[in-house]
Each structure stands twice: as structure tokens, then as C-alpha cells.
């Protein structure tokens, strides 16, 4: 029986989420035996043509060329899974969505006319059908292995959609917000990191994006009542997942 083919594709991003596959040091060779890593330019010169049973897509859509490329990848893919905050929510580069991109280009480049870019950085789902979105900035190694395993075995990935607080409580952490007044996005952010930041005595900054049905306004009001400046609250919501709808709406409301 021939092994299913895997493709790994990159758009505007830092490469960290696809690196997560190479960071699975204990599992990588076993994964490569179970599936055919057919198109993964960061790791291999070899490019085996599609179709691919599973395509992992990293990065957000920011150029006219990439807009065409994602459509080709969708046509070549049985399952398309986005990996990380850029592909799922537009990434930190979606901060341009609140700004004037022409002005940005002038600020960074001496010759703005050489630069081809779209006005907005958008998630993959805005352009093609996505079968599953894996959250995180970066994604979790274990959630990645679970997701690959699930799709290759014809089941849904078992990825929790509850908040960071659930994992934080299970870990036995003292709440940084209640005990120390440290602003924390944990109550509205999806779990996946095992409450990493609170475990290091700092507030969550939202790497895994909005949890299912978050109440961002309740948290935002609490923060304002506890001395967080409105500008800092807006900045906190406009982070690596700032363009995800619940965070976007809340930050727009507070920005006024």
C-alpha cells in the first residue's frame, strides 16, 4: 500500500509552525515512515506532484500571487489544515489591517514601487475552504501530531476549545490576575499551551486565539477597572490573533 502524501506550504509567516514538525525529534522518522513527506521545501529539495492527502498551510495571505497559490493548493489537497495564528487569523502582520499599507511600505522601503502587497493580511479561510484550523503562535507539537494522525485515520482531531484557565487550574497555578492583578488574556484564549505564561508568573498574551464563545468585553471591562490603560488594552487584544473576529470586535469597540 502506498503511503499517503503530505504537503507543507508557506505563506507570510516566520516558519516556526512548520519547524514544529522538525522539532518533533522523537517522532519525525516514524512520521516519515507512515506518510510520504512529498512537498516540504524547508526540509527537502524533492518536490513530488500532488494531489496530497493532507496539506499543512502556514502563513497568511498578503500578496496577489499568494492569493492564486492558495487556490491551487486547495485544488491539489484532499484535506487542507491551517497551522498557526498567521494562517488561521492573519498573524501579527494583520496589524496592517488597521493602517495604511502604502504608508507602511514607505516607512520600511526606500522604493515602495518595488513592493507588491495586498492592503490586508488575511487568514486562509477567507479565500478557500479549510478542513481544520490548528491554533497557536506557535502551534503545539503534540496538537500537530494529533491532527496529522487524526486526518490520516479518518477522524476529527481531538483538540480542546475551552479556555487557558481550565488548563491553568488543572496545573494548580495561582491566578496571576486575581492574586497579583496582572492583566491576562487567559479567560478568553483557547487552551493548548498548558497555561505557559501564568506558569512563569506572567499574563497570557493570546497565542492560541479566541476560545469558543469568549466574553472579551467582560474581561476588557475588568482590566480597565483595574487600571489598565485603554491604549494598552487595545494593543493586548491586537496581538498575534488580533484579527480573529472576537478579538477584533472587542479591540475596535475599546478603540472607539
Amino acid at each position, binding site marked *: 500500500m502506498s503511503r499517503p502524501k503530505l504537503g507543507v506550504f*508557506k*505563506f*507570510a*509567516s*516566520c*516558519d*516556526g*509552525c*512548520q*519547524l*514544529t514538525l*522538525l*522539532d518533533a*525529534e*522523537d517522532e*519525525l*522518522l516514524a512520521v*516519515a515512515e507512515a506518510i510520504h*513527506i512529498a512537498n*516540504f*521545501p*524547508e*526540509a*527537502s*529539495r*524533492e*518536490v513530488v506532484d500532488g494531489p496530497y492527502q493532507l496539506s499543512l498551510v502556514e502563513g497568511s495571505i*498578503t*500578496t496577489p500571487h499568494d492569493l492564486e497559490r492558495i487556490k491551487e493548493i486547495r485544488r491539489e489537497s484532499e484535506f487542507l489544515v491551517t497551522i498557526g495564528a498567521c494562517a488561521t487569523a492573519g*498573524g*501579527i*502582520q494583520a496589524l*496592517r489591517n488597521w*493602517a495604511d*499599507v502604502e504608508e*507602511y*511600505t514607505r*516607512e*520600511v*522601503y*526606500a*522604493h515602495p514601487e*518595488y*513592493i507588491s*502587497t495586498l492592503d490586508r*493580511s488575511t487568514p486562509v479561510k477567507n479565500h478557500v475552504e479549510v478542513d481544520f484550523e490548528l491554533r497557536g*503562535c*506557535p502551534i503545539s507539537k503534540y496538537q500537530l501530531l494529533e491532527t496529522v494522525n487524526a486526518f490520516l485515520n479518518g477522524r476529527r482531531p481531538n483538540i480542546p476549545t475551552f479556555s487557558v484557565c481550565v488548563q491553568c487550574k488543572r496545573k494548580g497555578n495561582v491566578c496571576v490576575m486575581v492574586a497579583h492583578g496582572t492583566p491576562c488574556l487567559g479567560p478568553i484564549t483557547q487552551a493548548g*499551551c498548558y497555561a*505557559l*505564561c501564568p*506558569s*512563569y*508568573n*506572567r499574563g497570557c*498574551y493570546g*497565542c492560541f486565539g479566541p476560545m469558543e464563545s469568549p466574553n472579551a468585553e467582560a474581561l476588557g471591562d475588568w482590566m480597565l477597572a483595574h487600571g489598565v490603560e485603554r491604549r*494598552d488594552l487595545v*494593543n493586548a487584544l491586537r496581538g*498575534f490573533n488580533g484579527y480573529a473576529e472576537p478579538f477584533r470586535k472587542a479591540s475596535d469597540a475599546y478603540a472607539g
Partner: protein
Amino acid sequence: MPDDTRVLDVDYLARVEGEGNMKVRIRDGKAEIVEFGIFEPPRFYEAFLRGRRFSDAPDITARICGICPVAYQMSSVNAMERIFGIPVEGPLRELRRLLYCGEWIESHVLHAAMLHLPDFLGYESAIHMAADHRETVELALRLKKIGNDLMVLLGGREIHPINVRVGGWYKVPTKRELEAKLDDLEWAREASLQFLDLLAGVPMPQIEQSFEYVSLSHPDEYPLADGRIVSNRGIDIDVAEFNDVFEEIHVERSNALQSRVRERGPYHVGPLARYNLNFEKLTPGAQRAAYDAGLREECFNPFQSILVRTVETLYAVEEAIRIIDAYEQPAEPVVPYDVTAGEGHGASEAPRGLLYHRYLLDDGGYILDAQIAPPTAQNQLTIEDDLRAVLERNIDLPDDELQWRLEQSIRNYDPCISCATHFLRLEIDRG
């Protein structure tokens, strides 16, 4: 198109971080065009950092690169700490070097063993290579993981660590937590030597280049997290003078700005630069291993960067052991400071070379202006010069072999294109 013209066109370079290309045109047996381009989409970091608070800089700039986030965190906190006038010293600084050792081990072994070695042995990837060299790949994976484990312990996770802050750390480890890594690090010392021994037996293309080598330099240490900027052609400056000596230019084929020494030209940053300018600061063990691998105190062959990277891996392992042995847990994880307005410069040695940051803050600590000069952007012009030299020596190779050799030459620099873009496709055109 006449018969005496050849075109090599690689429109998506593999085994590098990010999206780049190479275009070569050969007319009448001579290189006419040699271009290394970067089509990684621009992400405009320097623009959207404006209006963010100083404390966001280490977390946001880390996202420029998933392979060297620690470098971005270090250069940014160095710049902010200069503005606030708070030197971070003693164990807090030693822990930063230790975190950086983890990133060097992880990134160097990833590149040397997984991305670069397959070129020397003729495989498409490390996974292809594993079919014939399983023990080597397994050794490299375990070594790489030991680097990652240090990052997990100190930074919370391998990619985009969360524990670094302006003034120090959110939480410092106990001595016992660090000592638990010593057995792995002792194994890593032997594994680095074994890997270097293997590499020393691999045939290397011979070419000597005379670049201007630029790196940080510190009176007592091999450079990692701070220092002065020096070169083999007389540069010896404080980090704050970076823009007086270097300039960034923008060319059409690249979404990354290219750097050069003002009124002089291209320069090279990275392992060869650090090694050539700081050999005497390596541990005796790393120096001995370099000699045993056939290197001298200076190395001018970019293909041998794979050896130097592995010598630096050994250095990072030995430095990590030294830091852990000497560590005494500090009472506080962070140095207190007052937020003030001002301009600050910071630099550190990313695995692939010097990384410079500059920030201007208002009196509330919000960023008014930001500048980031990543290593691969600084290396772009040198990479093109080097490609031209390699091309001229190998011009009689058939196209597919020539293309592979040129790709390998680019990989000598461990280019990180995601970083450089603010930055690559190969085209070879023989006419």
C-alpha cells in the same frame, strides 16, 4: 536563444527558512547575471511596532523568525535596557547566554545535519539521508533536542519563548532544575565531537574568499548576547554607531534591504565571521576539536561553515555546562527600572550572524521608531559575490549539477529569509 547561453532558474530554494530564489545567466561561458532574490512577502514589522509599548518588542520581534526567536528577544531587550540605563549582569545575564546556547545548539544542528549535510552526501533531504545514515540522523536529532530542552526549561517553549523580559526574566530556574540537564549536555559534548569527526571526513569543495568579516566581540567571551561590533578591516565600534558605519539599500529583486559598509561594500556576518574574529575565546576543547577537524585559527572557505557551525555547537554545549556549574539562583528575576524616553541600540549574535535593533521611545515607553537589520539581509551582497565565484569555478558542470552546487553555496550561509524580509527564487539563464 543562441546555443552558447545557459539559464538556470530556481524559483523556490529548498532547505532554507523562507522564500527565496536564484537567477543565473551565462553567456559565452561567462557569468552575466547572478542574482539572489527574496520574494518572501513583506510583513512591515518596523512599521507596526510604532505605537506598541517597549515591553512588546521582545515578543513581537521574536515572530520575525521561528528559527532564531531568542536572537530577536536578546537584541530588543539590549536596546531597551540601554535606554533605561539598566545593565543586566551576573546570573541574569548568564541565564541569557544559557538560553542563547540552547538556540545555537538547536539551530546549528538543524542546519548542519538536517539542511546542509544532505548537499555534501548527495541526498534531497535528511529524511532521504536517513535511509542510509540512520545513526547519524538519530544522533543529530537527539543533539538538536538537547538545545531545544534548554530553551523549554529557560524560555517555556522552543519556538517563541515567553520568559525573557526587559530587565531580566519573568521567572528564574533553580540550580537543581539546571543541573538536571548536565547528563544530557555531557552526552552532547561527545555527540558534537563525533559529528564533527564525521564531517571532517566529508569532501569539501575548495574555495577561499576574502570577505570583510563582521561580528560582535567581548573582552572575555566568545560573543553571544552582547559586545562591540568589530571587523577584520578595522571596524571597532559601539553598537550605537551601527548606522554611521553600515547602510541599508533597497533593490528591486528583493523584499529585503541589503546592507554594506559605507563607502566600502559587502560584508559577511555569521559563524565564519565570529570564528575568524574570536577564535582565541573558544573553549580549549572547541579549539582542539577545530584543529582535529582540519581547521586553523581562521577559515575562508564558506563550504567549511558546516565545520565551524559544529565547532560552535560544541562551544555552546561547553559554555552551557560552565554556566550551570557556576549558577547561583538570584533573589529577584528582574532588575527594577524607570521607563524613560530615548533612543537605544542593541545587538546580539543570532546563529546566522549579527542582529541589530534600534528603537526610539516616547516618555510613556511607546515605540516611535524601530529599525531591525537581520543577518541574512546583511549577507545578501556577499552571497551574490560568493555565488559568482563558485559559478566561475564550476561553469563546465552540467546544469543540474551546477544548480545543486549553487544552491549548496547559498545554504553555506544558513539564510533565514523570513528574517531578512522586511527577504529568495534560482534562475540560471545560459542565454
